[in-house]
């Protein structure tokens, strides 16, 4: 489902180049639940960005559902994301000017489709059936993240990337979000890639990739 080979990333910074990721290779099967963990600055988010085609690597290659990302330009990568990838972010990243229902529909609308019934059903599924017309500002943090989850699943993605999805939430609400996410993952058979520095959260994954200083330090399957 997802494979990367010899992935490296570096940034020019003032005097020299700063290497963030070095020579990362691994593969993730369809339907798997993988956690990428590591301390701050270990390159987790950069890796996630490269896997999802949000940025180009300095070297190496990523295959998403068998498609080599380096062969695609920015718009094609965006289209690929729209078709196959779902995202959940730490800061929810809802569009403040749209209602919950409209937020859930954004990925579909970008593809020129519209399916309010499905969006409504997804909001029901995450327990917000009665809040469809609310704006993000009118929702609590946990509710906003549930809207974000519904949005992530609106396009029936093959793979879901989650970046510290509980980072801004209290423990109980966070746990609820993770439960919901894993449930949805199971129901839809989605591949789940989770980035976190929370060992408890990572413990729920079947496979843990540990990053340190831009290297893949360990790859453990439970």
């Amino acid at each position, binding site marked *: 489902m997802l494979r990367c080979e010899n992935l490296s990333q570096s940034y020019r910074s003032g005097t020299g180049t700063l290497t963030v990721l070095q020579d990362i290779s691994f593969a993730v099967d369809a339907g798997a639940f993988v956690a990428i963990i590591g301390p701050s600055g270990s390159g987790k988010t950069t890796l996630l*960005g490269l896997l999802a085609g949000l940025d180009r690597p300095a070297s190496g290659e990523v295959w998403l559902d068998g498609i080599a990302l380096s062969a695609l330009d920015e718009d094609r990568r965006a289209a690929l*994301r729209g078709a196959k990838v779902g995202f959940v972010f730490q800061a929810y990243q809802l569009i403040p*000017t749209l209602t919950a229902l409209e937020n859930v529909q954004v990925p579909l609308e970008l593809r020129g489709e519209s399916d309010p019934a499905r969006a409504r059903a997804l909001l029901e599924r995450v327990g917000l059936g009665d809040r469809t017309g609310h704006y993000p500002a009118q929702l609590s943090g946990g509710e906003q993240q549930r809207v974000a989850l519904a949005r992530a699943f609106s396009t029936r993605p093959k793979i879901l990337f989650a970046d510290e999805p509980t980072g801004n939430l209290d423990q109980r609400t966070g746990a609820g979000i993770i439960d919901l996410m894993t449930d949805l993952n199971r129901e839809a058979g989605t591949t789940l890639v989770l980035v976190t520095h929370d060992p408890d959260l990572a413990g729920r994954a079947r496979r843990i990739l540990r990053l340190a200083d831009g290297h893949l330090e360990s790859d453990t399957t439970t």
Partner: protein
Amino acid sequence: MTLRALLRLAWREGRASRRRLLLLVAAIATGTAALVAINTFTANLRTAVNAEARGLLGADLALASRSAPTESLDALADSLACGGPAPCDDRATVTTFGAMGYVPSRTGVRLVRVTAVDGRWPFFGAITTTPAGAWPRLQGDRVALVDPAFLTALGASIGDTLALGTLRLPIAGTVDHVPGDVGIATAFGPRVFIPGALVAETGLLGFGARAEYDIYLQLPAGADVQAIADTLKPRLRPDRVRVRTVQDEQRNLGNALERLGRYLGLVALVALLLGGLGVGSAVHVLIRQKMDTIAVLRCLGGSSRQVFALFLVQAAGIGLLGSTMGAAIGLAVQQALPRVLGEFLPVAVTPALSWPALATGLGLGLWTAVAFALIPLLGIRKISPLATLRRPYEAEARPSRDRWTIVAIAVLMASVVLMAMVQAGDPLRGAAFAAGIGVALAGLWLSAFALVRGLRRSFPHRLAYVWRQGLANLYRPANQTVSVVLSLGFGTFLLATLLLVQHNLLRSLRVDGSSRRPNLILFDIQPDQAAGVDSLLRARGLDPTPAVPIVPMRIQSINGKAVQDYSRDTTEVEGRPAGWALRREYRSTYRDSVVGSERVVLGSWWGPGTDSAGGPVSISVEVGLAEELGVSMGDEITWDVQGVPIPSRVTSLREVDWARFETNFFVVFRPGALEAAPQTLVTLVRVDSAAERGLVQRAVVERFANISALDLSTVQRALDDILGKVGAAIRFMAFFTLAAGLVVLLGSLATSRAQRLRETVLLKTLGASRSQVTRVAVSEYLALGTLAALAGLVLALGSGWALAHWLFETKFAVPAAPMLLLAAGVVALTVGVGLWSSVDIFRRTPLDALRNE
């Protein structure tokens, strides 16, 4: 905290948002620049007028009258200038009259203003000619000098022969500049200068011809000109001789120019106020975004007063920097103003520094920034240190409605009114202007608010997604939609109002090609020439209107009270006839029917026939004149028709549409009383092609030298020209307000930059292509620009209608194409500026969405 520490902290704190603060600086700078430019220019203009004052009149004293100087006036002039009865060269006589001038070897003919100079006028100031030094030739040589425009109009050149009535003179050169002359004055008729001794040879100053006679005097050195003038004025008034002095001229001109300068200054003030509005709105948003900083500062032990002072210092810094930059730009811009306004200026203006103008600009700029920032800044005091720990989601740093806010609002409003009063130079006009701005801003705010509210309430859900997203962005949190619409809308409003006024003023004179309305008027026709003119025109296949008689007359008495008795009343009280209306010469007519351009509003029109012999003749008076004379139905006016008293009684009042190109009259007599009076006739005719119009005029003038012709298209062109130039001056200033609006837009874009970046990158992450995010942005700016343009246009339609209806009293029409063009321009500018400021946002990779959390 010491002031030094405060300044240091304010600087450090502002560093991070320097780009945004710079835009606020620019917003203040734009208005200050406009203000400094126009005020410096006005000051320089005043200096120039004072410096050239003597040249404006060309003499110490001028005695002007509408009839040839009487012997006693001549003797008076001689004794004043020469100290005795013997003529000397310290007096000159200039006779000015309208006539048809042409060059026999060329085809055209032009109505010109003939200036016949007798004596070595001007005594002060120099007239420049081409070739140089040709002016003195008018004293002795048989030559003429002409305006360059005359040569251009006829395709003639120096050396050709000029024909004026029966006089033929070689054109010895052109007159390029006469001191005190306004360039635009020649628009209606170029001037022709001839030696005064040759006036009689033209044969043009016969009965019915209008001429002005000016006697110019150079008084002996040391004479108290003003004292002499003051004693002369009441003495000469009954003889209808006007006394003018350099001081009078200077005062009149100074006042007129001062008014022009002040008016343009008020437009500049609007630009500054819009900048202030932008600052206020941006500060409001900045404070919201800085809530964390503020809360942290409070946590670290800063008192709310210190924190408030910190941001107030920043606002003052913005004001100081903005007004300084603006002043520098303004000084540069004012170099261009003499070129924009040159056609209206009788003096050459040298750009120079004016300290008062500079100080006013700096002061107003600084104050505007602080006054507008004050209200949102007051909200700072309400931010508690607790916000570092618990920040209410999307907290509103709403300006609280406490005592201080009310005081701040009052101070702001009072200072706006005060600024307007200072700039207008007259408290009442300033207050009225401030009220006007208030109404305009309130109107714009209302329409912007209604449009945004309406959009939100009935959101177009059927639109494509990118459009909906763009529209939704207009009410994103911390949006500045209303302030941007307000500032851009105001610029649009000013420009659109200008367009409307210009259009409506010109439209009333415009005769379209298909219309059969007359476009050529022939006047000063002597009764014995009428048949000849008619047959000449008919021979050319034209269909002239029946000739209308014109009888010159003056008022002798009203209800038995002689005009001279009114003259002693120096004050003009309401209900008492104004001096001008009493003393002017009336050119009246007599006829038995009402014409199309007039309407009887009081009393009734007379039937066929005449009044009973011996009684007063019935007259119909124009409403406005009746008001000025203080007469109404049944009042008796006795007219002096070439020395013969003719009593009359007002039997009806008429409303007259003066804008129509027809023969209209203040006073119409019932037939029967004036037929025998000395009179001239006027006839109108429609001539389709311009070339044929020229030929017709030429044919008439060659046969009847005393007849003058006025071509409507020439009048139109002249008006077009004048209004265009007045418009250019106002547009020049209006563009400053539009520029201020654009700066406010840029400022608001910079303020919402982080938010827009986050949204754009998020959409990309969710699968949006670059073209999709671009279209979202385009639709947002398109909507914003349309809102602003629409709000401005709506308001301009209102004010344009009001101006047309009440001030110009014409029917109101909307020039659709230019208005739409203006609106499209504003929209295009908004979209262009918006996209330009977003280019780098579109370029960012989506990974930023994950990083910038």
